[in-house]
Structure formats: structure tokens, C-alpha cells
């Protein structure tokens, strides 16, 4: 390979391998390690103590608020991934049936919103959902309701809806890829043997696309649970999520070690979710 056979390039080769091993170490491993180490420090009265203890972790399990908020957040993100998959599957299926040219056009249209300003999207969704927003005004105008709805204003429902709207493209892509990988011959065989389209879908296509569905769901879950800006913006005081608690430890509460410990716990939850997804994928 490149630089290998060349005697003059020995120095360059050495420099290259130093760089390739050193830079990831300094800018990725070292920050993550210092992060984990920080989670064992502790803070008292605004003063940071640099001796290693487990008190951040015991606080997490003994204090009555943190475990319920984590469970609630997991449930919320689970619902986000279920909704995103349910909405994304038909789109992915339609994409898979289209001809190559139209397929990539539509796929691009699915992906463009991902590159658009995330903050402005949250803001726009918030102003549409708000008490005096577009949705309520439309429903009032259509005389479907006579009082503005408040179920989507500054609470967990609003977080659920906003995260789903933001993350649908992440659900569509893996499902689409798994549908594309299904060999055409299997579908043709099913039809030749007299199965209807619906039977072919239920017995052949759906089971074969399940790994993609699981990937999509775990993808969306991980992205949703790591998001702290959306709940901050649309959640109001009642829409408290785990991500917000972590963020507040680095802002107003100013307890970095505790925030780091909470993030380590969040990471463990995510590793479990990804591992479960992988296991399921391998089994099917």
C-alpha cells in the first residue's frame, strides 16, 4: 500500500502513524477519560473536591427525583421511536417501490430537512403548537374546537411531538436500506406461489425488514435521549427530561461532577439500548 514499499518514506510513515494514533488519543480518548474521572469528584458549597468518591452515583439512586425522571425520559424516547418508525415505514416502503430516479429525488427530499436549522425548526414548531399558534387558530377557524387546546403547550406532549417531527428522517433511512436489501427473487417467488401482495408483505417483506426497523428505533431513541435543547425549548416547567437535568448541572446548578456522573449513567442506558438492538438484529 501507499508509502509501504518506499524506503525514503520511512520517516513519513512514522509521522503518519504517530499522528493517526496521537490525535484521536488527545482529542477523543483524553476528554472522555477526564469526563469519567470527573464523575467521581464531588462538590460542596461551590467548592470542588478532587478526591475520588462514589457519592454522585449514590445520590442518583437515593434522591427521589432522578430515577423517576430517567424512567420517564426513557418512556418518552421509546414513544418517540415508535411514532417515528410507524410514520417512517410507509415512506420507506414507497421509496423502495419507486424507480431509481424518482427514488433518489424523494430520498433527498426526506434528508434535506435534516440539514436545516434545528433551532429554527424547534422555534417554528413551538409557534405552531402554541396557545395562540397556527394549529389552534386553524382548529378554531374550522370550528372543530371552541377553546384553544393546551395539551401541546409546554409539556411532555409537546416534547414528544417535536422530537418525532425532528427525527422521522432518521427512522426512514435504515428502514429504506433494509427494504432495498431484500432479494427480489424472494418476492417474486412468493408471488409466483400464489401469495397476494398483502400476504407477501406480511410473510416475506415485513419479517425481512425488521432488522432495519430495530436499527431505526434504536437510532431515534439514542438521538432523542441525548437531546437537551428541544425539551428545554418546548417542555416548559413540567416537561423535565434527563438531558435537561444534565445540562442544568453545567449551567445554573454548577455541579460538573454530578452532571458528569449523570451523563455516564445516560451513556450506560444508551449502550444497553444499542446492544439490545444489535442482539435482536443478529437473531432475526
Amino acid at each position, binding site marked *: 500500500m501507499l508509502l509501504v514499499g518506499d524506503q525514503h518514506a520511512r520517516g513519513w510513515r512514522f509521522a503518519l502513524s504517530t499522528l493517526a494514533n496521537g490525535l484521536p488519543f488527545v482529542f477523543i480518548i483524553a476528554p472522555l477519560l477526564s469526563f469519567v474521572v470527573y464523575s467521581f469528584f464531588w462538590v460542596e458549597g461551590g467548592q470542588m473536591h478532587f478526591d475520588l468518591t462514589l457519592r454522585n452515583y449514590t445520590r442518583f439512586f437515593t434522591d427521589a427525583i432522578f430515577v423517576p425522571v430517567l424512567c420517564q425520559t426513557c418512556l418518552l424516547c421509546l414513544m418517540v421511536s415508535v411514532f417515528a418508525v410507524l410514520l417512517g415505514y410507509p415512506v420507506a416502503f414507497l421509496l423502495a417501490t419507486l424507480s431509481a430516479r424518482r427514488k433518489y429525488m424523494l430520498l433527498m427530499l426526506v434528508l434535506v430537512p435534516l440539514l436545516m436549522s434545528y433551532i429554527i425548526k424547534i422555534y417554528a414548531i413551538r409557534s405552531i403548537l402554541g396557545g395562540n399558534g397556527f394549529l389552534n387558530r386553524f382548529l378554531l377557524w374550522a370550528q372543530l374546537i371552541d377553546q384553544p387546546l393546551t395539551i401541546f403547550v409546554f409539556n411532555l406532549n409537546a416534547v414528544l411531538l417535536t422530537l418525532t417531527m425532528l427525527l422521522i428522517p432518521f427512522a426512514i433511512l435504515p428502514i429504506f436500506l433494509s427494504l432495498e436489501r431484500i432479494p427480489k427473487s424472494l418476492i417474486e417467488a412468493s408471488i409466483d406461489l400464489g401469495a397476494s401482495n398483502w400476504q407477501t408483505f406480511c410473510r416475506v417483506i415485513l419479517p425481512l425488514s425488521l432488522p432495519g426497523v430495530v436499527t431505526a428505533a434504536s437510532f431515534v431513541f439514542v438521538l432523542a435521549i441525548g437531546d437537551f435543547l428541544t425539551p428545554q425549548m418546548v417542555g416548559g416547567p413540567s416537561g423535565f427530561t434527563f438531558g435537561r437535568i444534565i445540562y442544568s448541572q453545567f449551567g445554573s446548578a454548577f455541579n460538573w461532577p454530578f452532571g458528569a456522573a449523570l451523563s455516564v449513567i*445516560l451513556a450506560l442506558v444508551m449502550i444497553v439500548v444499542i446492544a439490545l438492538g444489535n442482539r435482536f438484529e443478529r437473531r432475526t
Partner: protein
Amino acid sequence: MMKLSRFAYLALSALTAIVFILLYGPLLVPIASSFFEVAHGNVQWDMPSLSAYAALVHNEGIITAFLNTLIVGFCATFLSMVLGILFAIHYRNGTSPGRELMQFVIFLPFLMPPIMIGLALLIFFRETDISRSLLTVIIGHTVFVLALAYRTIVVRLKSLSASFIEASYDLGASSWQTFFYVVLPSLKSALIGSAVLCFALSFDETMITILVTGTDNTLPIRLWAMMRLGFTPDINALLALILALTTAMCILAVRYLLPTESADNAA
């Protein structure tokens, strides 16, 4: 895929339409209102005007933030391209287990939630006494987008047959000549495509940036700060411009990254 019945096709199209309303609906209202006059906080739908765009030119906070975003985007993209090529060549140069580990470490920031990468870098910068500035933002973005650049480049480099490189050496080219005349040209489309994607990701990166930035704001951070007070009409104009820009970048990325029509038919 199978041939759909008319009913199934219509049903799927209807569901897809709903998803597209969810995806694009939130953006249409502000974009549409950017072309109209706003008075007393209400959009005057009967008064088309471009005053929002004119006001945008005079909004210095936004323009500075936009320039900062461009600087960060270009630097992070450039760095991740250069490092991506170097790391990919290093990865292909041998098969030691250390390389697999290095590859995993490079992917980590993309697999982990941004809040953790952001916090880890924040703690790291504090411990190493690097004060937060645009430089720390550039480092944060590079760490994040490098995974994507590296992945695209290494995949393309794997598909480059070793015999091309051997042929180049046999014909008397040095390592540098081989790199510039054989390897780099074959990476061209992967580089352009991933550069566009990296830039687009960096352009909208919010969660890492908000943690590692100092007093210099990038556009998303500026918008985040403004959001508490509510947006002025010129933000709608900005949104329309960003939409146009990102769509153009996305079309470019799709052109260079996705298989072309002929390759698709052949497969």
C-alpha cells in the same frame, strides 16, 4: 419490489404526504411570511415586501454570527478532510489490531450523543487551560464531523485496487507522485461529497457548540439566544436563505455520493 395495487399506492402516497407535511410544514410558515410586511407582530398577508431581507443586511449580530459559522465550517471541513485522508492511509497501510481500535475511537463521537462529546470536551478544555473561543468550537466540530469524512474516505480507499498503486510504483513514481496522481484523483468524488456533508453538519451543529463556545457565537447559538425574546421578521428572511443554501448543498452531496443512474441500472 413488487408491483403495488392502485389502492396500496394511493394509501402509501397519502401517508407519505402526511410525513412531508410534518417535515416541511414548520418551515413553510416562517418562509412564506418572510415575503410579507409585518406590523404589530402580525403578518400582513396582503402586503408583499422584501423589507425583512433589507433589515437582515443591517442586523450586525446575525452577520457576525453567520461569518463565524462560515469560518468554523470551513476550518472544520478542511481539517477533517486532511485528517481523514491521513488516517485512512494509515489504516490501509497495515493490519495491526491498534488500527481497528483507532478506527473505533474515530467513530465514537458520531455514535455517542453530542451532549457527552460536548461535556467531555468542555471538561478537557478546562483541565488543559484552553480558554473557550472559536478555536475550541472548531476542534469540537472537527472531532464530530471527522467520523463521517473518515468513513467515506476509507470506504473509497478500500475499493481502490492495490494494483493501481503497485503499477504506479513499478512505473517509477515516488510515494508522493503516487499519492497526487493516483490516490487523490480516485478519492475526488468522495472528498467533495463528504466535504459538503461535513460543512452542512458543522453549519447547524448546536449541542456541542453551545457547550464549548466562548463569547463568539455561531449562527445556531445566536438564534438560540434570540429565541427567548422571540424572533424579528428578518430571521424569517434568514431562514429562507439558509433553506436555499442547504438545499443546494444537499443536491451537490447527493450528486457526488449516491450511485449514478447508469451504475444503478447495471447493478
